[in-house]
C-alpha cells in the first residue's frame, strides 16, 4: 500500500464545474511528485483536496493507511507553502514559524529549539525578529518554507511557490527545494504550470489537463515517451513539432515530404511529433526547407521553418552558419518520431 493514495477523486463545484475527474494516483513515502498542467486544469484543486482545504465530491484519499476525507486540515499532518506565501503579516518571523507548534501544545523550549534549527538550515536565523513586510521576496519564500518544515509533517504541499520570484531567484530556490527535500526525505507534492520546474524537481511528474491525469511518469519517460498529444506539446521547450498527416502502410505523408516509419501502421488522421532537437540538419539531408526566422540563444539557436504549410522549429548548435531566408537540408530518423492518433489524442 502506498503512502498517499488517491482513488477516483472527483471535484464538482456547486456551480457544476468539474475541476477534477476520477483521478487515481499512488505516491510513495519520500517521493517528490510534481503536478503540472495549464492554468485551470485542476492541479491546485487536487492539492487543496489533499490538504483538506477543499471538500471532496467523490472518491477517497488515504494517507499513511488512514482515510483522511473527513479529517480536519490541521489533523492531517500536512504542511503547505502557498503561492503568495500567506505569511502572518502581524507576527514576527519567529512567531510565524512557531504558531503551528504552539497550537499543538509543544513546550516553549522545544519550539525554540525547532525554530532555531530550521532557521539555521534555511539561513534565516538573522531575521527571526522581523515582520514579513520587512523581508524580500526570497526571504519570505524561505520563511514560508520554514513554517512548513518546522512542523515536521508527513507531506509537504507546494502550490506554485516560485511563481512570484524573479527568474534568477526562482532557479536558485528550485535547487534549494530539491536539495532540502532530498535531505529531509519528506514526501512532497509540488504544483506548477512551468514544465521546466516540473522536469527538474520531480522524481515523478503527473501531467494534468482538464481535470484528468494525462500521464504519470519520471521526467525522462514523460519527455521521451509522451502518452498523448497534450503531454507531447506541453512538456519540452521549445515545444514539440506536430505535423498533421495521413499514414498509409507505415508511410507518413506531410504534403510532399514522406517519412518511412518502418512499420505497417495505417491511420487516416494522424499527427507526427518530432522534438526540435531531434531534427538533424546536414548537407546530406533527405528533406529541404528554408529558414523563415532564426532565434539566437547563445550556445543554441532555433530555426523556424515550414513544410507544406505546417510550421516547425529545430534547435541546433549556433556554430552552424544559417541565416533567415537560407535554405537548409535536414533528416528525421523514424526512431525519434512520436505518432499520435488525432481522433483519440493517444499515442499510436
Amino acid at each position, binding site marked *: 500500500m502506498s503512502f498517499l493514495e488517491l482513488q477516483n477523486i472527483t471535484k464538482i463545484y456547486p456551480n457544476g464545474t468539474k475541476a477534477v475527474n476520477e483521478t487515481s494516483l499512488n505516491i510513495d513515502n519520500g517521493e517528490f511528485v510534481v503536478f503540472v498542467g495549464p492554468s485551470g486544469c485542476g492541479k491546485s484543486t487536487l492539492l487543496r483536496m489533499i*490538504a*483538506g*482545504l477543499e471538500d471532496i465530491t467523490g472518491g477517497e484519499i488515504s494517507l499513511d493507511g488512514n482515510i483522511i476525507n473527513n479529517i480536519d*486540515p*490541521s*489533523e492531517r499532518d*500536512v*504542511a*503547505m507553502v*502557498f*503561492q*503568495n506565501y*500567506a*505569511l*502572518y*503579516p*502581524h507576527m514576527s518571523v519567529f512567531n510565524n514559524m512557531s*504558531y*503551528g507548534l504552539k*497550537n*499543538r501544545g509543544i513546550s516553549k523550549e522545544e519550539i525554540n529549539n525547532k525554530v532555531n534549527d530550521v532557521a539555521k538550515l534555511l539561513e534565516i536565523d538573522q531575521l527571526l525578529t522581523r*515582520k514579513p*513586510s520587512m523581508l524580500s521576496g526570497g526571504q519570505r519564500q524561505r520563511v514560508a518554507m520554514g*513554517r512548513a518544515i518546522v*512542523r515536521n509533517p508527513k507531506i509537504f504541499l507546494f502550490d506554485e511557490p516560485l511563481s512570484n520570484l524573479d527568474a534568477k531567484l526562482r532557479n536558485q530556490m528550485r535547487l534549494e527545494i530539491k536539495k532540502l527535500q532530498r535531505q529531509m526525505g519528506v514526501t512532497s507534492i509540488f504544483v506548477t504550470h512551468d514544465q521546466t520546474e516540473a522536469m527538474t524537481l520531480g522524481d515523478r511528474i503527473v501531467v494534468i489537463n482538464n481535470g484528468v491525469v494525462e500521464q504519470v511518469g519520471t521526467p525522462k519517460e514523460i519527455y521521451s515517451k509522451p502518452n498523448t498529444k497534450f503531454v507531447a506539446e506541453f512538456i519540452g521547450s521549445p515545444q514539440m513539432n506536430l505535423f498533421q498527416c495521413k499514414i498509409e502502410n507505415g508511410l507518413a505523408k506531410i504534403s510532399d515530404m514522406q517519412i518511412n516509419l518502418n512499420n505497417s501502421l495505417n491511420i487516416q488522421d494522424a499527427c507526427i511529433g518530432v522534438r526540435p532537437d531531434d531534427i538533424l540538419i546536414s548537407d546530406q539531408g533527405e528533406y529541404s526547407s528554408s529558414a523563415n526566422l532564426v532565434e539566437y540563444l547563445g550556445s543554441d539557436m532555433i530555426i523556424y521553418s515550414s513544410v507544406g504549410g505546417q510550421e516547425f522549429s529545430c534547435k541546433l548548435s549556433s556554430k552552424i552558419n544559417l541565416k533567415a531566408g537560407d535554405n537548409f537540408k535536414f533528416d528525421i530518423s523514424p526512431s525519434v518520431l512520436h505518432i499520435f492518433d488525432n481522433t483519440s489524442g493517444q499515442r499510436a
Partner: protein
Amino acid sequence: MTRYISSTINHCILLIGLLIMIVPVWIIFASSTHSSLFINTNGLQFFLGDNFIENYSRVLFKKSGFFNEITALKMFFNSFIMATGIATLSVITSLMAAYGLVYFKIKYATILFWLIFMTLLVPLELRIMPSYIVMSKLNLVNTFAGLILPISASAIATFFFRQFYKSIPDELLEAAKLDGTSSWRFFIDFLVPLSKTMIAAVFIFMFVFGYNQYLWPLIMTTSEQYWTVVMGLKTMYGSISDRFAFVIMSMIPPVVIIVFLQKLFIQGIFQNK
C-alpha cells in the same frame, strides 16, 4: 515667483480657516479666566484674566443641577463611562458580527448584512419610545447599562470591519487552518490584531458619538447622579464665566481620546504596510 505667490495665497486661506476654527474657542477660554462681573461689564475677552484656577475649581467641585446633587467632575465621570462603554461594546459587537458574516457559511449572509445596514436609516430618536420601554421593563432606567446598551451596536462599524475582512486573502485563513487554529483563535490571533487600525478609528468615532449623546441620557435618567456633560451644558445654571469654563472642559475628553488614539492609528498603518 508665481509659485511663491500661489503658495502664499494657499497659506493665507489655510490660516483663515484655522482662525475661524480656533478664535471662538480661544475667546471662550480667555473669557472663562475672568470673573463674571468683569465679563458682564466689559463683554467677551480676548486676553487671559487671573481667575483661571478659581473659576475652574469652582465649576469642577461645586454642586449644581436642579437639586444641587451633582458636580461637574461627576458628570465627566458619567460621560466617560458612557462614551467608553458605547465605544468598547460597538467595537466588540461589530467585530464579531463582521466575523460571522464574512467567515462563516451563513445562508443569506448578504441579506442579513443589508438588514443590519438598514438600521442606519432608523436613528435612535425614531425608536426612542420602544427603546425606553424595553429598558424600563428591564429595570435599567437610571443605570449605566441603560445608557449604554441601546447604542452599543453600530451598523456602520460592522460595515467597515466587513469590508476589511473581505480584503484579507483567503490563504491567510487556510494557512492558519493548517497550523491548527480554531475559529475562536483565528479571531483573536489574526483578525483582532490585523484590524488594530480600524479598531482605533471605530473607537474614536463611537466615543465621540457616545459622548455627544443628549436626548437618550435625558430620557433614561431621572436621577441627577447619572447626568452627563452634554446634559450639564444645558442645565448648568452658574455665572457666565462658570459656563464658559464648563464648555472648555467639556471639549477636553474627546480631544484627548483622539490625540491618544491617533498615535496608535498612525503606528498601525505603518506596521501593517
